[in-house]
């Protein structure tokens, strides 16, 4: 089996959080969908709550403290990303945005990304399309067509048969297909020079 990595970024604040619950369902579905395509997906889940102070410190000092550095390296090196935010005040949460503000601007280029969100009611569902999708389009990620939104009501339905579950399965399949058609991700060394000094002098 091909070996690939999936990084799940969950921006839920409460513990336990419905955002994390959705993230876990998406990553389990992605592992299954990938296995059907002969890919073993290794999953790393990043809870942004644990990194909230580090993210603020990075914004203020310009460098990531140890744990955040590991998270950023994991995202940069991932073959696919699942990004899940709660919807706050008509958009992704500030913490979610702050994390992607400190991700290197080229780290997500051509990387398959599945976007998902949670909120109290379904009225917030289009925030995925007007906020998260443009954010990842800007970062030149390949966002799969199906985004997954879960409101409180969705958790009441039987998750094995509900509308939410069918979207999760479809989105996970789209993500697995994108992973399948790509070579494993490579990370550019920031210390590797791409031009010779003689050329710079010209």
């Amino acid at each position, binding site marked *: 089996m091909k070996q690939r990595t999936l990084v799940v970024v969950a921006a839920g604040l409460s513990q336990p959080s419905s955002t994390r619950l959705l993230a876990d369902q998406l990553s389990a579905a992605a592992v299954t969908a990938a296995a059907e395509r002969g890919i073993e997906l290794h999953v790393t889940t990043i809870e942004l709550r644990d990194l909230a102070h580090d993210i603020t410190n990075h914004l203020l*000092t310009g460098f990531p403290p140890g744990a955040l550095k590991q998270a950023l390296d994991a995202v940069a090196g991932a073959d696919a990303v699942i990004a899940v935010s709660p919807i706050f005040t008509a958009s992704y949460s500030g913490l979610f945005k702050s994390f992607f503000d400190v991700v290197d601007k080229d780290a997500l280029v051509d990387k398959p990304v599945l976007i998902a969100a949670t909120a109290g009611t379904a009225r917030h569902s289009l925030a995925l399309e007007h906020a998260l999708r443009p954010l990842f389009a800007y970062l030149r990620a390949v966002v799969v067509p199906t985004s997954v939104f879960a409101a409180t009501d969705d958790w009441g339905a039987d998750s094995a048969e509900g509308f939410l579950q069918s979207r999760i399965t479809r989105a996970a399949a789209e993500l697995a297909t994108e992973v399948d058609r790509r070579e494993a991700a490579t990370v550019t060394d920031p*210390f590797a020079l791409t031009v010779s000094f003689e050329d*710079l002098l010209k």
Partner: protein
Amino acid sequence: MQFGIFSVSDVTTDPTTGRTPTEHERIKDIVTIAKHAEEVGLDVFALGEHHNEPFFSSSPTTTLAYIAAQTDKLLLSTATTLITTNDPVKIAEDFAMLQHLSSGRVDLMMGRGNTGPVYPWFGKDIRAGIPLAIENYALLHKLWREHVVDWQGKFRTPLQSFTSTPRPLDEIPPFVWHGSIRSPEIAEQAAFYGDGFFANHIFWPASHTQRMIELYRQRFAHYGHGDPDQAIVGLGGQVFMRKNSQDAVKEFRPYFDNAPVYGHGPSMEDFTRETPLTVGSPQQVIDRTLGFRDYVGDYQRQLFLMDHAGLPLKTVLEQLDILGDEVVPVLRKEFAALKPAHVPDAPTHASLLAAKTAKEKVSA
């Protein structure tokens, strides 16, 4: 090995008293601090260049010349000289002048500056930051080495039959360091010319500094200036000391918490762990500083940031006393004992003159 201090020249409110020194006070204080650096036995005083508040140091050569006149041994340097927005012709002339006035006690550190708006103030474009640093330095390098220069580039008017005056003292250009926090191109530039490379070190994790120095050393060897461990490396450092380390922590915390750059961000404990900042006893500073060698190799210059974040003059002078009396003598001895013979010291005017004289004797 050379030890000294570098100042960013900030005018900052003392968070413990709410008092902000005037520019005049800080300018007079910096002269006192530099003179005291010599008194306590330090080798180098380096001053930053800024053209915006809350910094006072817009004219480093003026300040350094005034200090030179009141000191005998102290080596005067910059941290940094803006190679992007200064005209290289003026840098060539100003620092050659300072070289003569100070009888060769001058070197300088090139940098690109820390603020975007400075570029248009001097008619430059920040998007050309790196190309400016490269072209301007290429011209400066030539002006100090060739008597009559014909030159054409992208960023300033061409020169025809131009001689920058005065000529460098004894026809020996001041030694140049290239300072950078994060740009591999600048490490490459330092390596290309066989100049020194100074890693700011104090604002970023050690792992980052390690990679930059590694790159510089490899490229220094690539360009044929010697083995990687013969490259000329300088490091920044940031310390606050009291005899009892808990006293140091207690006294420095309000300054840390409110400091420009990192204030209101990470805790002092976090920042101490992630960067070379050391707040504690002189022995802790000695141990931490000796540890720098473990990840950058044998290096030639260690500068400490001492006067910043609103620390009062009296405190800064006390810190210099501790540095000069208790820390640097131990560091000198320990670093010297560890350094292999084939690793050179940082070039000075005296060492460059001796090398030049020896070379001329051989060829004569």
